[in-house]
């Protein structure tokens, strides 16, 4: 039933967690101090590249009667949208570049190229998701209120549609992300009034109109006789962006090993445990430099959740350090190839469409969620630590042991 005692689950003592927090703080301080011209140049060049791609894509699509222009234009436009949303928008709105003091590349000013207004995103993502990460009942990104992604949530008949909702969300991701801010669950629970929701909707509607107007009216109209192919290519470019963003984001929190937590855990949390929750609740995927860039460096989801406001171009180097810490404290560092990570997420969504009686694993020990009770019948913590070799035997070893016993 999700993790309530994160210390016991992680096989760590209070002192361990304090020490871990101090080491993570040191990484943060080091990166903060070394931010400079190199990083500034990186984000400026990224912006230049993104705008050149956007302009190039639009221009190419004016000639979309030609097959080559169609393919090149769609590819450029889709890349521009992906880079804008992932590496620029998401990260700038997180304040990763606020240190530059540049009013044009700043969390308070950036409006991104997607249906969701930045101000609302800051609430639903930066605040709700990043503060309450994977706390079932507090983080509305656990299933986005439209899917069951952990068996910690009791099954209800509508959840039989899980795979369909999943497909729809991927297809309409940009619109789903925007509408997510309405927080239908909170309205159902009377934590939010309809009047508030209507106010949000008005702001959102305005931006949605502009976004749709640009892609589906203005550019087709400007393309003249090519309006039909331009319209189609714009739809395709948006779809590519939607599916890619959806995939990256699902691989961040829904693969096996991305743990879920109870409200009780959150309420009794120290700062070190907050770090620990971010580490255990997120998952990376393997990526080379190009894929990392196109994912907005969210292939380093663990690092992003530990340090959401540090510049994304530094996540790669931070990941080496974080991995070393996982090694040191014998903690799992969840990562794998993109296809496997996505498959695990997808399989969870598929399975959880069914009522619990069809599910084999208990919520204390399931692929998508675990709790400290998983280790209840194994050797107690004190005896697992400090074996002859002097290496720490913690959570990672315990998980491996259980797997071998199970097999």
């Amino acid at each position, binding site marked *: 039933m999700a993790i309530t005692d994160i210390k016991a689950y992680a096989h760590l003592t209070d002192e361990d967690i304090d020490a871990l927090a101090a080491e993570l703080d040191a990484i943060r301080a080091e990166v903060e101090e070394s931010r400079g011209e190199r990083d500034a140049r990186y984000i400026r060049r990224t912006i230049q590249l993104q705008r050149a791609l956007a302009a190039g894509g639009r221009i190419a699509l004016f000639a979309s009667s030609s097959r080559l222009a169609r393919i090149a234009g769609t590819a450029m436009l889709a890349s521009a949208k992906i880079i804008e949303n992932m590496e620029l928008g998401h990260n700038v709105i997180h304040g990763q570049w606020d240190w530059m*003091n*540049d*009013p*044009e590349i700043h969390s308070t000013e950036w409006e991104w190229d997607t249906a969701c207004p930045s101000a609302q995103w800051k*609430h639903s993502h930066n*605040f709700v998701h990043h*503060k309450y990460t994977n706390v079932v009942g507090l983080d509305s990104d656990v299933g986005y209120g439209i899917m069951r992604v952990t068996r910690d949530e009791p099954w209800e008949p509508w959840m039989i549609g899980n795979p369909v909702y999943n497909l729809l969300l991927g297809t309409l991701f940009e619109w789903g992300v925007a509408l997510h801010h309405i927080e239908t669950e909170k309205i159902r629970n009377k934590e939010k009034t309809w009047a508030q929701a209507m106010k949000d909707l008005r702001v959102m509607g305005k931006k949605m109109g502009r976004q749709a*107007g640009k892609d589906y009216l203005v550019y087709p109209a400007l393309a003249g006789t090519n309006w039909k192919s331009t319209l189609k290519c714009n739809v395709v470019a948006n779809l590519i962006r939607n599916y890619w963003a959806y995939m990256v984001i699902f691989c961040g929190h829904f693969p096996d090993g991305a743990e879920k937590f109870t409200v009780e855990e959150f309420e009794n949390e120290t700062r070190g445990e907050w770090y620990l929750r971010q580490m255990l609740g997120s998952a990376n995927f393997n990526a080379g430099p190009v894929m990392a860039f196109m994912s907005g460096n969210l292939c380093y989801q663990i690092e992003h959740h530990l340090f959401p406001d540090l510049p994304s171009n530094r996540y790669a180097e931070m990941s080496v350090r974080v991995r070393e810490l996982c090694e040191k404290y014998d903690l799992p560092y969840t990562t794998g190839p993109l296809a496997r990570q996505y498959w695990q997420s997808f399989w969870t969504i598929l399975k959880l469409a069914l009522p619990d009686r069809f599910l084999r694993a208990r919520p204390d020990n399931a692929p998508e969620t675990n709790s400290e009770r998983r280790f209840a019948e194994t050797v107690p913590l004190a005896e697992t630590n400090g074996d002859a070799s002097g290496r720490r035997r913690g959570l990672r070893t315990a998980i491996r042991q259980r797997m071998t016993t199970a097999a």
Partner: protein
Amino acid sequence: MSAIKALARWSKAPARDVDTASGPWVNIVRGLAARATTPLLPDDYLSLLNPLWSARELRGEIVAVRRETEDTATVFIRPGWGFAGDYQPGQYVGIGLRVNGRWHWRSYSLTSVPEQDGEQISITVKATPEGFLSTHLVNGVEPGTVIRLAAPKGDFALPDPPPPALLFISAGSGITPIMGMLRSLRAREQHPDIVHVHSAPSADAVIFHDELRELEGKQDGYRLHLQLTDSAGHVDFAQFDTVVPDWRERSAWACGPAAMLDDVENLWKEHGLDSELHMERFTIAATDKGGEGGTVTFAISDKQVEIDGATTLLEAGEQVGIQMPFGCRMGICQTCVLPLDGGNVRDIRSGDEHGAGDRIQTCISTASGDCTINI
């Protein structure tokens, strides 16, 4: 008619926040083009071709740097789109310069003549040991560098037409706004009766020395009293009658170090003449810098509260009943970010200091001396 108005308003809507110096039609074009570039403005693309082609943020290009004295230089700037040249002499302009990836902001008095000088503006900067940006401007900035500008402002501005009898009191780099006034008067061919009391350590250190001497020789009604403090000591305001016997009948404009301005202010107050005195203080005495806590002023709400170094600015605002924007309250969501108008604040997590012009996260910042937040 109202339909046309509505159409114009609709056209302009996306460019609503953009200041334009060249009339409303520009924003109609900008707004219409923005329907295709939304959520960006066409400026965001054009500025990639030429950095001055943007009115989203005022920009300028440094054209030349001319050394005035050993530690001062005049920086000539060609402003980009959207910069209004109709400032008033005596006003200052905000300058943003990128050094090692970060933008640093400071304000400097304009020494150029409004709407002249080939649309260029100039500022004159003194390199002070603690002034990181001023040192960079005087010693290191290359012509061609693109900088940020903030629209000229300030109440220390000479009216047009000017008062018939003027008294300028300046010291050191405090001459810069006065020079803006003197040059504007000359360009407008206005010749009020001026007494100018200027102090500097030595003749070599007098900024605009030759130009002042030339004015003294050529311009009717301009009298210069140059006080070289290394040899003659500071102006003794207790004996000011001996320097300027008719100072009480003059509209007084003073700019210089805080100590001098305090003397001037006391003298004018003593004689009940404070309404005749205009002063420009370059920096609020930074005595509190590095201290913990201070008085927080919320500029728009017009409220003040004193806090210790453990209270965040967010809490401070809420204490006095301001609807502060907030989110996570732990420094990760950026919902609470507000511009710092004056003073210094400290990031509680890292201990870093932020100065005026920075945007700060109020939920993890506390006052480091007195500060002003724009809400």
